[in-house]
């Protein structure tokens, strides 16, 4: 990297995805852009990041059936509350139904007891007024719990094998 670049390559490389997503502040963006002028390695990383995005093409216009909103409003006011939630996941039902043993269920059962408490405390502590919104989805808490646990597991795995910035 050249002496005119006040920012290091590893810093820029870590910023590349958010930079390409246009999710960095203006001042960070211009710092990155200045660096890119001098650094072909980081330019390549940006290009590669853009290349991958070429796989995501804009979907055609959505077609909403005519009269959908009126139909839904009628049903709602007629007392239709929608489908019952699917059977509760393992976290809420300690004994998974036979034949529906999910790949992660053992791990989930193992951490469910501690994880449930920890995560609900976390949600309660961090959510502020949003927490009440959790009531919005019966089952959402469970789904979020699963997602977060999977996420934490993956994060642990990732940090054990490939550090996030180690690109």
């Amino acid at each position: 990297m050249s002496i005119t670049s006040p920012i290091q390559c590893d810093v820029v490389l870590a910023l590349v995805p958010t930079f390409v997503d246009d999710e960095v502040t203006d001042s960070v963006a211009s710092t990155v852009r200045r660096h890119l002028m001098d650094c072909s390695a980081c330019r390549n990383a940006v290009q590669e990041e853009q290349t991958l995005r070429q796989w995501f093409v804009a979907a055609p216009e959505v077609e909403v059936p005519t009269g959908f909103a009126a139909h839904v409003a009628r049903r709602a006011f007629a007392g239709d509350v929608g489908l019952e939630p699917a059977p509760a996941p393992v976290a809420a039902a300690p004994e998974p139904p036979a034949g529906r043993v999910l790949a992660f269920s053992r791990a989930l059962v193992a951490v469910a007891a501690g994880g449930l408490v920890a995560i609900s405390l976390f949600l309660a502590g961090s959510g502020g007024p949003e927490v009440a919104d959790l009531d919005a989805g019966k089952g959402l808490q469970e789904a979020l719990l699963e997602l977060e646990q999977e996420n934490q597991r993956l994060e642990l795995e990732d940090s054990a094998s490939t550090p996030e910035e180690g690109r």
Partner: protein
Amino acid sequence: MGALMHKPSLESQDDSLLVQGTLEGDPLCFEVLVERYQRRLFGLVRHYTRSAVEVEDIVQDTFLKAFSRLETFQQSSAFYTWLYRIAVNTILDFMKRQGRSPIRAVEDPEAMGGSMDETTERKSIRPDARLEQAEISEITRSVMDDLPEIFRTVLVMRELEQMRYQDIADVLQVSIGTVESRLFRARARFKKRLLQLHPEFAATQSNPSDEESKS
């Protein structure tokens, strides 16, 4: 409000007023809310199932759930975010009904760990110039179908629905940092799976030193 208003005047109202009107029993207020967001929800949901009937069912179910829980909606948060959260929940629920876990991983468990190995990282994979947009979409779709839902959802929101990090974070109730790291891993996973399914599009990344010599 609401009961005395006509539809055109309702259409210019804020979400919060329409929510209020719905809670006071005006079906038209709810209809206008549905109309306002139906397009976005159809757009979101169609990335999860190819069946138009299922898409419609899921969106309808989302709105019915939203209606039945409208009293729990906190006006301090955006209605749109709250509605999206219910939609994501409804989608995950739908996946479960289909026997799909929301975090199902069809990949080799051995491959779960290192999200971007050296070989994957060094390879570039771009759509062939001869491919039609619809063909690219189909390939992308088939790769997404193989991703754990946790990754598919964040890619759908960001790449296909162009949602901002903040909105994704609000919907999923995670931090922006988590959105970033999840997206990062999701893209790595996407690329890896794409390379597995379609090695014919792989190319070695251009060598930086070659390019540098010109500038």
